[in-house]
């Protein structure tokens, strides 16, 4: 099973043979090799379950030894032992099976981790000892004569050939598994790469959208500030007319004072009113001037704010542009990562 560790690396211990080796290719190779060398073979996973069909199995094994439960169990035990030797040494191991045939087990590794075993053999290196085979036939409950006939048909070769055959299977199967493992790693990495870039791309798009938002808000802010300036100019216009009203009032008060003076004693009371009017007009004028000072300060402050706002706007626009550039670069890289990913996954 292809499993990833929390850091994104492949979990080697979870890997199975079918994850790294194309079983159909292995079967073809195994069949042809078995036929060519006249040596039986089968590939099992790390639990001992066959993943290929047996190639060139002998009648001795298929029709007799495996035909009873006792024989089958002995075979399984024998295979297990051979497999364990191979797994321990990480090298092909050659041994004599429970029935007396020569077998080998070649480990299939990823790094130093066992993912399966190629079992093979079912040959002899010397003429069979009939008595021994008769004994085995009785023990596992098969026909003695048939069993002896069958063992006589078993291919006879020498140990050197068996060792070479085991070595070839070992080398080829491990090359396949190593290449498969590398391809799997590449595929995992490129997938992670592609996913990360997609993530970055999405984040950058969000960033880009929010930066456009910031720019728009800044623009609105600038417009509002300019409005404030316009309003304060309007206030000044109004203050001008208040000032001229105050001037007129002063004139009125002065004229009233003149009239009161001319009226002599009779105008004395009116003179007081006239003075009040002049005071009032003076106050109005002074207040208007104070407000004008304030609106002037408002305008100065608004001018400064507009300057700041302009430079902020410029900055945010530059930021938006930069983000967009990064986003478009990222898109290219994401496309590359996707291509890499699909190349790595193309088996």
């Amino acid at each position, binding site marked *: 099973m292809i499993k990833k560790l929390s850091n994104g690396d492949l979990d080697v211990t979870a890997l199975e043979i079918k994850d790294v080796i194309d079983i159909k290719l292995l079967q073809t190779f195994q069949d042809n090799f078995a036929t060519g060398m006249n040596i039986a073979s089968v590939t099992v996973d790390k639990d001992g379950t066959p993943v290929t069909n047996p190639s060139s199995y002998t009648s001795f094994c298929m029709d007799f030894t495996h035909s009873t439960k006792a024989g089958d169990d002995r075979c399984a035990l024998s295979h297990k032992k051979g497999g364990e030797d191979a797994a321990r040494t990480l090298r092909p191991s050659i041994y004599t099976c429970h029935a007396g045939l020569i077998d080998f087990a070649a480990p299939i590794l990823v790094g130093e981790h066992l993912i399966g075993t190629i079992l093979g053999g079912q040959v002899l290196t010397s003429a069979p000892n009939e008595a021994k085979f008769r004994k085995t036939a009785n023990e596992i409950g098969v026909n003695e004569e048939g069993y002896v006939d069958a063992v006589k048909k078993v291919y006879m070769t020498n140990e050197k050939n068996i060792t070479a055959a085991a070595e070839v299977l070992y080398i080829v199967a491990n090359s396949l598994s190593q290449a498969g493992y590398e391809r799997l790693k590449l595929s995992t990495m490129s997938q992670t790469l592609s996913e990360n870039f997609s993530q970055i791309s999405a984040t950058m798009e969000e960033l880009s959208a929010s930066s456009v938002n910031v720019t728009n808000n800044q623009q609105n802010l600038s417009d509002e500030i300019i409005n404030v300036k316009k309003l304060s100019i309007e206030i000044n216009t109004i203050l001008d007319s208040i000032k001229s009203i105050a001037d007129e009032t002063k*004139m009125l008060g*002065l*004229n009233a*004072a003149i009239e009161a*003076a*001319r009226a002599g004693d009779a105008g004395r009371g009116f003179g007081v009113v006239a003075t009040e009017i002049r005071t009032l007009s003076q106050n109005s004028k002074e207040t208007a001037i104070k407000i004008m000072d304030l609106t002037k300060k408002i305008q100065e402050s608004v001018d400064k704010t507009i300057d700041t706002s302009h430079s902020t706007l410029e900055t945010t626009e530059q930021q938006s542009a930069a983000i967009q550039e990064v986003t478009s670069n990222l898109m290219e890289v994401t496309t590359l990562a996707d291509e890499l990913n699909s190349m790595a996954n193309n088996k």
Partner: protein
Amino acid sequence: MQILTFLLKDERYAIDITLVNTIENKMPLTPVPNSKKYVIGLISNRGSVIPVINTSLMLDDKDINNIFEKFIIISIGNEKLALAVNEIDDVVEIEEKNIENINNDEDFSIVNVNSNVITLLTYKQLKKI
């Protein structure tokens, strides 16, 4: 007594308020040919045609390019005159004993108002116009 104070440029002057009829904002002048040099035109006010005096020039002020903003309409006997000035200042109550004549000449008087000495235009002086 009460006096009306006014400004010619930055200088303060005063006039006896009983001589004053009214004060007015400046208005267009009608030129008068062959008149005295300090008469700068005529205005129509409350049914009367009144000569306008360049007050600066009348008081020997050298600045003749003064731009007048206000007119003080006064009565000298049966004559009405308009004194063109820069700004009307205030109406002030003074003690008559605070008026001092310069060089024993009653034409020019000065008066002390709130620690400021200002020139007071009197009836006698204005009558000469």
